[in-house]
């Protein structure tokens, strides 16, 4: 409750939250506001914004850009959240094992993490998606697979910090099982920074998905913002609206998530919040 109230007093965090809510509402109401599929060619090709009832214009095939932006919000949020969760799952498991057990296990797992950190994430993502044929599932897994190293690092650091605290030692003395200590005692105390980083990972995941779709490596059956920009890019001299509106959508969403994440970080970090009050 205390945290929630602190967050309400955090100006940029609240702006982020409000923007994010707008995006979520757009995503949820897309099928109500635009009952026709965003792929349906409803107008003439190259319809400028405002004409023929197309608020944001039509694309090269005459599809409604506004509908595309609205449905794109669903795809972007879905892929962003799902792949951030996938990254969190991988990162937390590896980081927890590494930090709790230490020693050789730690050494092996961290060298592996470093291996992933040295390969540029986007190049690896392109390689993975191209190898496994682009579809919703492969894109989520791919983005998850290239985004987990920072989370693993962070979780490991938190576990190292908490591993030898009194309450953990106490639990050990009471003969509690390892998984209970990890899940019941250490993880709850390490969760706040992990949540902050995960929320920021959503933003990078959305950007990654947009970049993949822009390059034609998105799921060809999903209307996503990156796909719209990629398709509109070539005609940008004749029809700016095809790439500008989805571009703005990406900008707003990623900005919102970042503001929200930073606000969350400020509020959850005790030292900062103490200074505030």
């Amino acid at each position: 409750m205390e945290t929630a109230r602190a967050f309400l007093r955090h100006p940029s965090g609240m702006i982020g939250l409000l923007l994010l809510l707008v995006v979520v509402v757009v995503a949820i109401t897309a099928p109500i506001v635009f009952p026709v599929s965003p792929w349906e060619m409803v107008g003439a090709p190259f319809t400028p914004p405002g004409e023929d009832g197309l608020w944001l214009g039509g694309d090269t095939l005459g599809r409604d850009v506004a509908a595309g932006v609205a449905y794109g919000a669903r795809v972007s949020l879905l892929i962003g959240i799902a792949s951030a969760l996938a990254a969190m799952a991988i990162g937390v498991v590896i980081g927890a094992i590494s930090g709790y057990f230490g020693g050789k296990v730690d050494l092996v797992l961290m060298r592996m993490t470093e291996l992933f950190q040295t390969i540029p994430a986007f190049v690896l993502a392109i390689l993975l998606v191209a190898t496994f044929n682009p579809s919703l599932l492969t894109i989520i897994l791919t983005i998850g697979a290239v985004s987990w190293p920072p989370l693993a690092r962070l979780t490991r650091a938190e576990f190292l910090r908490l591993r030898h605290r009194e309450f953990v030692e106490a639990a050990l003395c009471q003969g509690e099982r390892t998984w209970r200590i990890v899940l019941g005692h250490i993880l709850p105390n390490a969760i706040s920074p992990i949540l902050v980083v995960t929320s920021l990972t959503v933003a990078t995941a959305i950007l990654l998905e947009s970049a993949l779709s822009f390059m034609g490596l998105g799921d060809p059956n999903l209307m996503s913002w990156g796909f719209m920009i990629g398709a509109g890019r070539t005609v940008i001299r004749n029809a700016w609206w095809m790439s500008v509106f989805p571009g703005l959508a990406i900008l707003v969403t990623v900005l919102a998530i970042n503001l929200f994440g930073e606000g969350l970080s400020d509020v959850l970090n005790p030292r900062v919040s103490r200074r505030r009050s």
Partner: protein
Amino acid sequence: MNRREFTKAMLACGAAIPFGITRAAGQTRGGTLNTIIQPEPPVLVTALNQQQPTLTLGGKIYEGLLKYGADLKPMPGMAQSWEVSPDGLTYTFKLFPGITFHDGKPMTSEDVVFSCMKLLVETHPRARQNFARVASAEAPDPLTVVFKLKQPFAPFIGCFDCTSAPIVPKHIYEGTDYRKNPDNDKAIGTGPFKLKEWVRGSHVHLVRHDGYYLKDEPYLDEIVYRVIPDAASRALALENGTVQLVQWSDVEFYDVQRFKAQKNLEFTTKGYEYFAPHQWLEMNNRIAPMNDKRFRQAVMHLIDREAFSKRVYFGNAKVATGPISSKTRFYDPNVKRYEFSVDKAKALLDDMGLKAGANGKRAEIKYIVPPYGESYQRAGEFFRQSFARVGIDLVLVGTDMAGWAEKVGNWDYEMTQNLLYQLGDPALGVARTYISSNIKKGILFSNTQGYSNPEVDRLFDEAAITLDEARRQELYSKVQQILVEDVPVAWTLEIEYPIIYDKAFKNIVTTGIGTHETFGSVYKS
């Protein structure tokens, strides 16, 4: 009538009526033509590589015995006249005197026989098929070549343009490994232009071949082919005059409209008659529901091809009515027409029992998007919306070039899009898609959809060896009617690639192969 007689006739006309610019007057020597080559070809020797950029550039360097007009009738090339024996077995060509290669050595009938019978049959898949029909090729004197066929083959006279049978120097290639010959880099041919310099990644510089055998030709001093990989930069280069000619897919379809309006530029879709790029939605005839004729007919009704042309190709295409392009010989418009009608499509699907299931869907079909650029992607999206109207889910599957070739070649697909050249004669460019003897696993651009009809096989076979034009028309009309009824593939469009050039240049398009031509007669006013 050969070229000289033609010139004489034109001069005779000129004596009677006043004329402005003709071939005899008004042409000026000199000038440079800057144009685009996209993508950069791996080699300039057209005998070794037949991709479009190689043919466009190599067409200036290497010539064939004949040319073909927009009507696809033969015209003199390096052969000034030719004769076909009444039994259709003996073809005699008379060469122009004084033809020389770029290295100064004379070109004789020996070079022709060597090129056709030794080199091309090894390096040129299309030529291999054509010249495999030759029983013997002889050079009785330096200016005469005689081909004797094993059996009549009507389109044989259509196999001698510079893309189908380019002539290379025997003295350079005989007894060597053709593909590894060090002189491939010099690209020595007989054409009006010779290679001066090729800076990889930048440009190919061609200059006038002074020893060219046609009087006054070539008119231009030089042609520079610039390598510009980015589509937007290519369009800009044409717009600001850095290049004065673009061809094939140098500028994207959506830019064409803009250039049509630019005052100093001339726009034409002529010059592709020989190729007549024909496009279709390919359906694997082996798999249900595509194995049912009624389903394939429904597909023809489902696709609004006028809208398809307008929305995806920005109007740079004509609706195809059947297997033979309206630009190819023996085209017959009198076939069954499939107008755009969702109701008719539904009726056909209901009739074959493909009804909507519990989820409201009739079927789910995988469609492989050919990885050849944006218009293919948009086409897939257009098809998906068309099929959605009757409750068929078209699932688009992306792939890379190797993956597409592998899947389609090995029949491991349900639907995809395909585009083939018609090559002037149905026996050369059309039959290959429909005859059952060309169902060959692993080979792209064969009868990959697996359509088989003995009557169609018989008609195509007979038409190929029939010499009488009227009889051939009869056979091809019949085969077109059968195919349009059976719909082995759903023909969509005849793609009309543009040629856009600066109005100062004349004679850019003079034959049915357009910018693949030698450009000897191109001049700048």
